[in-house]
């Protein structure tokens, strides 16, 4: 919480030489309420704009309509189904990506050629937005879930592999020496020393991987939403645009943002319970 530091010294002398006394200010509020208030204000401005300006509701929906569409979408099931489809593909691709990244990282850690291959592949494929290989994936696998999965998996492999192998290569040599000193070798040394010591890098790799995957899947679904006859969130938004159901477009966007935030919170929580608690990474 970097902002807290800024708020600490409230009694700084002003230009006129008088000392400002500390009083209840915006900065002295806790983070939660501060953010909630800002969000509320944002929604209020949005609602006021829509109500007062008389903007075409087909272009901008009011927050109230968006909320209705969101609830309806989940109760009636169309938005819920779309969300589940997207999450299922994302989860599957993440799993595949993580396994491949694990294999590549293992090879890169144990052999020089493995490391060279990983460095080469990452430098080529990591800067490439994964969505760019979608046309190729469609050409190879057709308009189906497989193409999507390949694109998403490609998006997540590289950030994970780079971070994890960096984590393994930068393990504190003293800790390794301690491990060997107490008689650890081979798999035991990997499991009990290398893996926990590389955890900060691993978690940040997974975090980046999920974020990349999430952005890529929405983009890929926008390009072609039909996956196995049913569409995901990207398709849901595009479909809503086609039929001018503007509140649904907004509802879809809100869902995407919420899931993104939720994923981020999960990782922050895991970090708080592990590497931050252990002093291996400072809290954010």
């Amino acid at each position, binding site marked *: 919480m970097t902002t807290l530091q800024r708020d600490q010294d409230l009694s700084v002398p002003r230009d006129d030489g008088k000392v400002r006394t500390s009083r209840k200010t915006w900065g002295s509020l806790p983070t939660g309420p501060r953010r909630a208030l800002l969000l509320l204000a944002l929604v209020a401005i949005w609602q006021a704009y829509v109500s007062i300006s008389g903007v075409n509701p087909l272009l901008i929906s009011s927050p109230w309509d968006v909320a209705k569409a969101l609830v309806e979408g989940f109760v009636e099931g169309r938005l819920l189904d779309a969300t589940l489809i997207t999450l299922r593909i994302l989860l599957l691709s993440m799993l595949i990506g993580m396994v491949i990244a694990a294999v590549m990282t293992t090879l890169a850690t144990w052999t020089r050629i493995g490391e060279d291959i990983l460095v080469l592949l990452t430098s080529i494929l990591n800067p490439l937005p994964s969505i760019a290989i979608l046309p190729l994936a469609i050409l190879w696998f057709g308009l189906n879930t497989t193409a999507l999965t390949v694109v998403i998996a490609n998006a997540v492999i590289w950030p994970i592999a780079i971070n994890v192998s960096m984590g393994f290569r930068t393990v*504190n040599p*003293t*800790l390794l*020496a*301690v491990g*060997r*000193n*107490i*008689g*650890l070798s081979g798999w*035991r040394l990997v499991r*009990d*020393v290398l893996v*926990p010591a590389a*955890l900060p890098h691993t978690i940040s790799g997974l975090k980046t991987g999920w974020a990349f995957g999430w952005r890529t899947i929405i983009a890929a679904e926008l390009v072609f939403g039909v996956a196995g006859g049913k569409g995901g969130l990207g398709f849901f938004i595009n479909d809503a645009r086609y039929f001018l159901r503007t509140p649904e477009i907004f509802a879809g966007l809100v869902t995407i943002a919420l899931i993104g935030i939720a994923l981020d919170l999960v990782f922050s929580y895991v970090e708080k319970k*592990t590497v931050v*608690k*252990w*002093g*291996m990474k400072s809290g954010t």
Partner: protein
Amino acid sequence: MKSQTISKETVDELARDHKPLLSVEHAQIGYVVNGKAHVAVGDASFEVYPGEKIMLLGPSGCGKSTLLKAVAGFIEPFAGNIKLATRDTLVPGPDRAVVFQEFDQLFPWKSVRDNIIYPQRMIGRDKDEAGRRADEYLTLMHLEPAADRYPHQLSGGMKQRVAIARALAMDPAILLMDEPFGALDAQTRSRLQQELNEVAERTGVTILFVTHSIQEAVYVGHRVVVLNNPPSTVVEVVDVRDVHDPADEGFSEAMVHLRSLLSAGDETLSDAAFE
């Protein structure tokens, strides 16, 4: 592996027979960098008897830490023998527990207590026994209040205490200490030297201790093995077991003697540079 480690009984037996626990015989030790061998220790011979505190003292770069690493089994001598009891010290093992200089030698993901328990579990002790031992050494090193804390919450001095407790809890045949107090402030340093002396007296553990501090060598050690500049040899082994009190005359005499041994090496070096 376990059958190869030196047991407490073996150490007791050696003590009865007045035989050395560790013998370093004409050891030549160094590193290979880019295919070129750099000799740090040219020819070192000395012996460590059970229950002794042997200090390795020498100018920086003389290979005293390298020698300790060879005893620990991290590096192999180019020539000569290093024997623990009758066995070569070829691989690292818990019978030669090492306390390093670096504060980050503790596992950051384990609490202080678990840091002490874990290595004991690895040498085959059951959970209860390891826990009991951990508590014993936590008390011995004045660490009880910190038992459930994580290493990053501790001061440097506390971290080194934990490292010593962890090493001792493994019941090593010999405790290897690589400038363990070198990165501490002067006050903490002398506190820990004193505590180490007390603990060593209580447990009777054998210690091989690397230092560049003459004061530390005299205060902690029984005997001081003095090394000269690389490729180093043992200049002299100085017996300081009868001087403990820094206020004593004998203490400062021992320090003066050690200093003269160390600076003698320096003079040859500067002479060589002039030639």
